[in-house]
């Protein structure tokens, strides 16, 4: 240990993490005793496993060495102008937003005044201080089954984030928008935590956006738990627009009761390196999960989506469509694991992963993993990866589009195919414009280089 270095500056070394953990437990941010217990359990597991390496199967294609060896400090509190958040929000009048800046819930920037009865959207730290029993009942209960070291690290170190609670049979008519932004110059680390609890019969849409406001390097280590009660219907859209110099490690874990519906559309545009694990557990018969994703990468961006759908009960359906559009020297990874537990009969599961490589240097890795322990099930999977289909290019040219326009349209189609699953019209249109602009810029650069 180097004398005089602050505890968080050399976070890579486990002893520094240990010191930081003890420091957290000694302060007010440690939270109530039950949370301290859960933190200790998570910490013990992290201390045991350390950061993953590419020698581990689940991390074969994604090296987190830069994160493990990096120097990240806890960010200072910061305030940002509303105008800088607007590009990441939809709607105006009466919208519901929760804004977290540098890991701290910002109540001045959040709009939670007009929540319908039975709906809670608040700072997670505040909910912990207030001793909310729903938070105690759920927080960390789902991620604790995860084998992801970053999820453990989040549980050990998280101090704030957003708590969303949708009461029994409540139906929201507008999306709940959660925005996590990072601003500032020093490489920082935050562990934003989100807990969404949808009581039986409720319906809501949650938009979860992670964005970098400055073109700097930092690390976001996020964890989200989504609890979907019986007959509840939760649609989420998760948009990752971190700085292209940033790192993001994240887990989204859902648990569903009988006849519930859960859908996520995970869009990745940002970060130099990102890894997002989605784990959906179908815990009640007749539940349905849809996991969709779109990664659009350029330069040397690397994005890894690891998904697990666990069919623990019979008569559940799951669908999964992930597309990747990879330019320059970028690298996309998709691993789709489907587990059908014994007794989960009449499972119907479909997984598709399509990857478009725009250059010879771009790379995609796709791995389906089916583990089926029941006999009356239907599981299909398919993956494609490669350059643009020349037959499709010719088809479009034969209809009057020049080659560049044909290629643009085909590339855009790869993105639109996934955006079609975004249920909020305003958000879908916003994302459509963002990806259209991004792809056009890429095409121009390639055109100029050719």
């Amino acid at each position, binding site marked *: 240990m180097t004398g005089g270095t602050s505890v968080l500056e050399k976070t890579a070394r486990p002893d520094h993490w240990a010191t930081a953990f003890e420091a957290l437990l000694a302060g007010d941010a440690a939270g109530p005793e039950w949370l301290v217990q859960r933190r200790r359990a998570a910490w013990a597991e992290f201390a045991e496993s350390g950061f993953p390496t590419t020698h581990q199967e689940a991390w074969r294609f994604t090296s987190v060495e830069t994160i493990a060896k990096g120097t990240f400090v806890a960010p200072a509190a910061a305030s940002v102008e509303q105008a800088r958040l607007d590009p990441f929000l939809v709607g105006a009048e009466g919208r519901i937003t929760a804004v977290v800046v540098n890991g701290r819930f910002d109540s001045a920037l959040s709009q939670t005044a007009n929540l319908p009865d039975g709906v809670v959207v608040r700072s997670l730290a505040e909910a912990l201080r207030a001793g909310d029993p729903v938070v105690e009942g759920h927080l960390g209960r789902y991620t604790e089954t995860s084998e992801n070291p970053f999820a453990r690290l989040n549980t050990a170190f998280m101090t704030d984030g957003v708590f969303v609670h949708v009461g029994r049979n409540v139906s929201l008519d507008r999306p709940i928008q959660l925005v996590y932004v990072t601003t500032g110059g020093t490489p920082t680390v935050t562990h934003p935590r989100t807990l969404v609890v949808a009581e039986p019969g409720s319906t809501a849409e949650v938009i979860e956006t992670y964005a970098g406001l400055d073109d700097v390097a930092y690390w976001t280590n996020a964890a989200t738990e989504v609890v979907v009660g019986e007959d509840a219907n939760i649609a989420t859209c998760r948009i990752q627009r971190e700085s292209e110099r940033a790192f993001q490690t994240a887990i989204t874990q859902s648990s569903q009761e009988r006849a519930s519906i859960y859908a996520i559309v995970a869009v990745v545009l940002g970060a130099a390196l990102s890894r997002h694990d989605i784990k959906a557990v179908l815990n009640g018969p007749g539940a349905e999960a849809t996991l969709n994703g779109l990664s659009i990468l350029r330069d040397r961006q690397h994005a890894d989506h690891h998904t697990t759908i666990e069919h623990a009960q019979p008569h559940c359906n799951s669908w999964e469509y992930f597309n990747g559009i990879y330019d320059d020297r970028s690298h996309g990874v998709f691993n789709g694991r489907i587990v059908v537990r014994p007794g989960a009969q009449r499972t119907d599961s479909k997984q598709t992963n*399509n990857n478009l490589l725009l250059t010879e240097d771009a790379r995609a890795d796709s791995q389906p993993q089916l583990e089926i322990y029941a006999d009356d099930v239907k599981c299909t999977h398919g993956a494609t990866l490669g350059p643009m*289909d*020349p*037959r*499709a290019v*010719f*088809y*479009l*040219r*034969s*209809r*009057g*589009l*020049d*080659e560049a*326009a*044909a290629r643009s*349209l*085909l590339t*855009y*189609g*790869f*993105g*639109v*195919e*996934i955006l*079609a699953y975004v249920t909020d019209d305003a958000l879908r249109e916003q994302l459509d414009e963002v990806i259209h602009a991004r792809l056009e810029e890429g095409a121009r650069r390639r055109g100029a280089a050719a």
Partner: protein
Amino acid sequence: MLQINNLHASVEGNEILRGVDLTVNAGEVHAIMGPNGSGKSTLAQILAGHPAYEVTEGSVTYEGRDLLDMDPEERARAGVFLAFQYPVEIRGITNAYFLRAAVNATRKARGLDELDTIDFLDVLDEKLKSIGWDDSFMNRPVNEGFSGGEKKRNEILQMAVLEPKLAILDETDSGLDIDALKTVAEAVNKLRRPDNATIVVTHYQRLLNYITPDFVHVLASGKIVKSGGKELALELEARGYDWVKDEAA
């Protein structure tokens, strides 16, 4: 409108067309028939500008221009349309979006204003009415999950919207049941005008019961070996292709 002279073409070194001659005038419907592997589809693809085929000899003149010197998109904008034998699926892009992009590419090339979504939907609506179809697959991605018949119908719909001067139907009848065949043929007939021409490439005479050709040509081993009126198609249906090949040999 179209003059093909002594056209030779090969793909990956194999000569497929061995001296095709054909003249098509405005207002005419030509049927090109022939056994499998005779080069019918190759001819259709070459006219549309498919990059896989190499023209080794001969010429193709379209409205006074050297067609072979034009890119596929230039041909399309000049009014050449190929209804594909195997239409390609375009993921994510709806038929309506695709058709508007195609129409606007041609309008732009001709110095016309591009149509916005609303203007385009008006045009589309009118075209659909003209051929008696509904808009049921306008908001579905192009050809994705379409049945064989729907794909072929979609080709004809594109033809209706793009208003080609020279339409080439490449085995549009293959894989169609009789009702679909009639629907497609009726639409093609409705789109016939004195100033446009159609080339129907087909293996079977069946389609020609509904689209009456002015000329029937038999393509065998890369050459047109016999030409005649519509009665030739019936004779081919009754006697097969061997006698034509024998006669030509």
